[in-house]
């Protein structure tokens, strides 16, 4: 536990004494809950269609795969045509692309960012590293199976997958969302304890609350 995260008493310039407990004060500790779909099937279908056609990717590059996202934004492949846009903040994004190998240090940030995204949210694992560790299968500080830490909707295999493969993977994700089967956020909430135990097993310096939105 880092020093600045410990509970302490500080004195204000007025001489008032305040008790500060950063983990309590700065974060919400409520665990995620399963969010039901809209009451009407028609409305949920409309929402799912809109969600599928408006994928906002969180601008977070974890490994070497992030380099494959640039051709998607630029004229050669131009993913904007398919309703795929990039957002810089997890609050507004609904798709997290884990782009390549994920070191344990990055996993911590990925979990925090993922939990700040709003339900429904989707995860795409890009490259072999997210499936079985790829060429880092025996590395001491990268995770090998992404699915144990976050609920993954689609894997895109390859090392590296070309931008065409990414586009085809996004089309597959759209198909899954439209059929109403992309409930990753709810799966995460249902199996919250299992995911947390897995995450804590690899992250040694766990200095954040269990759930931080």
């Amino acid at each position: 536990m880092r020093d600045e995260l410990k509970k302490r008493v500080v004195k204000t310039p007025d001489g008032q004494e305040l008790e500060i407990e950063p983990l309590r004060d700065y974060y919400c500790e409520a665990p995620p809950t399963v969010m039901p779909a809209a009451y009407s099937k028609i409305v949920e279908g409309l929402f799912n269609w809109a969600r599928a056609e408006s994928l906002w990717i969180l601008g977070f590059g974890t490994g070497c795969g992030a380099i494959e996202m640039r051709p998607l934004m630029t004229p050669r492949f131009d993913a904007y045509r398919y309703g795929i846009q990039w957002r810089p903040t997890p609050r507004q994004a609904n798709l997290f692309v884990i782009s390549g190998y994920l070191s344990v240090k990055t996993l911590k940030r990925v979990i925090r960012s993922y939990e700040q995204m709003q339900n429904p949210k989707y995860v795409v694992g890009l490259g072999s590293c997210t499936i079985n560790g790829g060429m880092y299968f025996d590395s001491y500080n990268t995770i090998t199976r992404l699915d144990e830490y976050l609920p993954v909707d689609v894997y895109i295999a390859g090392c590296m997958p070309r931008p065409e493969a990414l586009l085809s993977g996004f089309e597959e994700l759209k198909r899954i969302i439209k059929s109403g089967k992309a409930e990753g956020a709810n799966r995460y909430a249902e199996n919250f304890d299992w995911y947390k135990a897995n995450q804590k097993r690899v992250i040694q310096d766990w200095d954040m609350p269990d759930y931080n939105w």
Partner: protein
Amino acid sequence: MEFEWIKIPYSMLTLFIVANYGFLLTAVMAKIAARVGRRHGIPVWQNYLDLIKNYGLRSSITHGVMYYLGPVFRLSGGVGLLLFVPTIYGTEMFSNMSFAGDLILALYFVFFGALGMALGAAESGHPHSAIGVSRGLSQVTAAELPFALAVFAVALQYQTLSITEIVAAQQGGVLHWTLFSNPFAVAAAMLSFLGSMMRPPFDVVLAPQEIPIGPPTEYHSSYLALLQTNRAIFPIAKIVVYMNLFFGGAASWPVFFLKVFLIYLFSVFVGVAFPRFRVEQSIRWFLVSAVPLGVIAIVLV
């Protein structure tokens, strides 16, 4: 003055037409900017999909009352600006709630949304929001100065504060427009226009590459959807003011659509051609290039 209840459905109709036109127009402008970069860009209906998706998010969190009210203030700034300015000149149906002193109210509404947003974003507690708000407010304030000068010049020129009367004075041919009768005021106002459209070179406030992504960093789901609706309505409402003051207003919807498109295109045209200013550069640019034009306009009147 008698209040006529029929004005309420009429202005709702105006709002509906303008909002839809705004959604389509911003997408078309994004497409035009994308074509300059040799891309195809988003589909024209993308804004609607984003809106439905944001309303359809299942979870949302709030940071407090002001956080909640920020987008509401922002949207009421845009809607208020639109409703108190005559949209189509000479029709009872689309004159909205315009009255004798509406020019002053319009000036106020242009600024209202930015202030509301500042309060809301500040309560979200995100440092990027605070930085974005301080940048945005300083830039909007600097951009507002030449516009205010131009508005005073126009009000002096026509000796009235009613937008309807200003439009009436410009009827009778292109050469009667303020554009030709008071070119300095129009020049100052159009430079100020660039600053308020959140496009390059003045989009450092919202540009995702700078500080992600400025004031709306913490906004999501329905809050963001309100902000998106405002991003469709507010530019059009502002352009309506410009069109009425400087470009002879519009007497029918086709003329309205054309003029709004061309005025909007001006900011996109500048935006794709010039790189982004930092905030202190843009403030200096407004004070050095635009304000003197406004002063000249007032002196000449």
